[in-house]
């Protein structure tokens, strides 16, 4: 599995766009034009992977949304890339009846059911267009890859599988089933694209376990069906050379609620936290110019600009995990190198210009040398321009982030939270920071307090709590999320397997940080060394087969084994080389970055990170403190056997 999942997905997409044959390498091949029709799911999948220019290069002349008004364009083949939902199928049938295109290549993002296929068949028959439907494919691409080693499940309708949806108290069985099905379908597609059957480990007693059970069942069914198994044949070719199967660790968001609230310091995570960042696209307001208007005060016009942070952007790839001060310096360095190259080109230009006028002093420069330099300068011009564009982009983005940091004093929060999470001594009291009027928005203070609450070994006394609450209310915070966290903490204390927090000698949470102060250019930079977040720790234990009370109780599933077993003893004693971590209930870039750092320290290991959705702290607080009452719920019916779905509510009593 040398190719990353992103490359595999992109390759699959390109193949699909080439009428499901391998794309030829020949650059001077005849152009074949086609039209691409997608729905919003397809759009979200394609947009991080292929830019519009790449689509054009592959011959796509038009790309349109399925549910938009589309005019008939005869004698053009159309490639559809949609989810097999009712409305999409209806629209496709309508297209067939209206004879919009010459031939139809239908690609369904996940597997289509037989009945829906028959619907399309009957529509095709009635429109006498059966011959026009040239190919029908199940693409199994129902997930969005954002980075080489990170994926999320979906962007549209993500409320349906959000943390809130999974953990709300009044959830019904049917809803839970639907959510689990969606998640398992996407995960199944992910493994089909990856081309490997993993070994699944999951904790007991929460949503993650349900997902694991269902996924195991699905994989097993597919493997049994020898004729149609998706895991044999060519796509296993690469996988078979790696003698090991990957490890798939399912984690539940409820394992660690402090990390989504944490203020962060690395570039990518900061952008996600502070700016509007979705599907690798940043949108921010840019105030245009500072023309003083002659007539009175007119507010500066704000343009919304959006930038794509792609895999081709080398600066981004190198620095997306770096701490922010490093990023600022690197941008400066890049700018300097760019200026040097620009000067070189200018110098050449002037030499070329001079040569016509004055032969004398230039005669020492040989002609061939100049032409070589000139050709290299000319060919490097587009590169230079691209570099300039990227530098501008990053300068803008970094400046915006810096503004936020300065106005909200995010570095103070970061430090303080680090100390909280690593149990070092606190220099300032929490109350001071909360009552400090110009340090951060009310949301920031809420986050800080919640982290304090979560990481405290003993919950604060009532009087303390009231004091804090008063201070928070004064600054305008919304306390609804606090109730939820209280209940969650209470529950994890009661039902926690002993290794969760606090009681064992193991450090309870996360990021213990050694903070050094570096004074450089009159600014204090903090240099720190990471240790592992809970998710990373669990992964480490499972991957290295370390024995740890926290993870020993995890269930073990191997879809390739003939009989499923309830045991949690792994058959395989060797450490794994590849792992995929999936957080049910939502993830964020901080965890991702932590995993990347962990992987960097262990050469030869590859870790992929996935989550059902990506949220930043603000969104998480909204979900947790949201209006649908996340309050105490009446007693949940005791469930008889564990296969029936039993998510981990913080407030429901466990009946043993």
């Amino acid at each position: 599995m040398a190719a990353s999942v992103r490359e595999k997905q992109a390759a699959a997409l390109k193949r699909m766009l080439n009428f499901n044959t391998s794309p030829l390498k020949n650059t001077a091949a005849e152009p074949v034009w086609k039209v691409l029709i997608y729905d919003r799911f397809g759009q979200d999948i394609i947009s991080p992977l292929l830019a519009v220019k790449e689509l054009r290069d592959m011959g796509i002349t038009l790309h349109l949304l399925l549910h938009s008004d589309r005019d008939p364009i005869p004698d053009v083949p159309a490639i559809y890339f949609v989810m097999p939902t009712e409305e999409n199928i209806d629209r496709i049938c309508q297209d067939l009846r209206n004879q919009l295109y010459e031939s139809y290549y239908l690609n369904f993002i996940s597997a289509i059911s037989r009945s829906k296929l028959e619907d399309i068949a009957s529509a095709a028959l009635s429109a006498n267009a059966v011959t026009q439907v040239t190919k029908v494919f199940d693409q199994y691409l129902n997930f969005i890859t954002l980075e080489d080693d990170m994926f999320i499940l979906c962007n549209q309708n993500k409320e349906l599988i959000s943390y809130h949806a999974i953990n709300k108290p009044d959830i019904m069985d049917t809803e839970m089933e639907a959510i689990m099905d969606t998640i398992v379908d996407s995960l199944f597609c992910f493994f089909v694209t990856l081309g490997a059957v993993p070994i699944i480990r999951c904790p007991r007693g929460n949503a993650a376990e349900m997902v694991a059970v269902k996924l195991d069942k699905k994989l097993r069914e597919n493997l049994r069906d020898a004729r149609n198994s998706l895991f044999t044949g060519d796509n296993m070719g690469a996988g078979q050379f790696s003698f090991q199967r990957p490890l798939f660790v399912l984690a539940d968001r409820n394992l660690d609620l402090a990390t989504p609230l944490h203020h962060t310091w690395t570039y990518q995570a900061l952008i996600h936290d502070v700016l509007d960042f979705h599907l690798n696209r940043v949108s921010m307001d840019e105030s245009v110019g500072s023309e003083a208007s002659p007539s009175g005060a007119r507010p500066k016009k704000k343009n919304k600009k959006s930038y794509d942070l792609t895999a081709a952007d080398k600066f981004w790839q190198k620095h997306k995990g770096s701490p922010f001060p490093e990023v600022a310096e690197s941008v400066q360095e890049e700018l300097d190198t760019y200026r040097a190259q620009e000067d070189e080109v200018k110098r050449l230009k002037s030499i070329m210009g001079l040569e016509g006028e004055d032969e004398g002093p230039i005669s020492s420069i040989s002609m061939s040398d100049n032409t070589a330099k000139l050709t290299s300068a000319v060919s490097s011009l587009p590169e230079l321009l691209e570099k300039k564009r990227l530098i501008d982009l990053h300068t803008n983005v970094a400046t915006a982030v810096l503004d936020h940091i300065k106005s909200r004093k995010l570095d103070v929060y970061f430090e303080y939270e680090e100390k909280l999470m690593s149990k070092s001594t606190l220099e300032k009291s929490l109350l001071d920071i909360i009552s400090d009027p110009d340090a951060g928005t009310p949301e920031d203070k809420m986050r800080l307090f919640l982290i304090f609450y979560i990481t405290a070994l003993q919950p604060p006394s009532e009087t303390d709590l009231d004091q804090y609450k008063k201070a928070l209310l004064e600054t305008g915070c919304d306390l609804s999320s606090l109730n939820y966290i209280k209940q969650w903490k209470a529950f994890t204390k009661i039902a926690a397997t002993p290794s969760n927090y606090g009681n064992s000698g193991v450090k309870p949470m996360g990021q213990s940080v050694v903070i050094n102060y570096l004074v450089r250019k009159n600014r204090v930079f903090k240099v720190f060394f990471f240790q592992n977040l809970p998710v990373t720790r669990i992964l480490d234990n499972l991957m290295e087969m370390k024995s740890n009370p926290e993870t020993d109780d995890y269930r073990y599933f191997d879809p390739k084994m003939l009989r499923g077993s309830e045991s949690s003893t792994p058959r395989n004693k060797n450490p794994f080389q590849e792992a995929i971590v999936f957080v049910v209930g939502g993830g964020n870039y901080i965890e991702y970055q932590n995993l990347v750092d962990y992987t960097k320290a262990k050469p030869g290991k590859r870790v992929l990170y996935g989550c059902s959705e990506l949220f930043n702290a603000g969104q998480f607080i909204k979900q947790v403190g949201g209006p649908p009452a996340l309050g105490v719920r009446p007693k949940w019916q005791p469930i008889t056997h564990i296969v029936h779905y039993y998510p981990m509510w913080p407030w429901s009593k466990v009946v043993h």
Partner: protein
Amino acid sequence: MAVDITLLFKASVKTVKTRNKAMGVVFDLPKDEIFKKSRPNNGFSLKAKEVISNITKLKDFLLQHRKDYVNAGSLISSDLTRMTDNERDQIDQDAQIFMRTCSEAIKQLRSEAEKRVISTQIKEHRGAVLDLIEMYLKGVCKLYSEQRAIRVKRVFEQENQRLVSEMSNLVDEVRQIEGKVVEISRLQEIFAEKVLMQETEIDSIHQLVVGATENVKEGNEDIREAIQNNAGFRVWILFFLVMCSFSLLFLDWYDS
């Protein structure tokens, strides 16, 4: 990996057909619909496909002759496969004309497409199609220009070779000439020596000759004088004789 369920789809079509037959549902396809199917906008895509096929022909032609074209001066090529420069120029010209016609055809198509505006989507589609064709043409032109660059490089190389051989010939000649000149200078030295030796002798001869000339001149003068004297002398002798005779005669008379 993608799973091809086209067969499944076709099976579903069969199922639906049989089901419809069983249920007595008949899909009545009005006859005129079949004729309506002939699309009104055939023109554009046909023309576009024509342009593409032309460009492909050009590409095939270029690729076909590429080996011969580029093989300008390989030692093992037989005379049959080698192309003369004329042929190459011909190919160049033809290719250029062809490319120009193609790009004009594209432009024409574009303006036509602009005029016959039907809907924005179709317009966009056609624009993109034309862009694709143009890119294809550019790719083929690149092939051609690469070939040409190689050829030009070859021509220059050949010229280089020629110049080098010419220069080396010249160098040889120059060396020969140098040798000869050296010999000539040596000989000339010897001559100069001899000539110098002869100079003194010639000088003395010259002197003698000058003296002789003087003498001869004087001699001539003397002879002239002598002749003159001789002539005068003769006159005086005659006079004397005549006088003597007269005197004799006188004396003779006197005495008588």
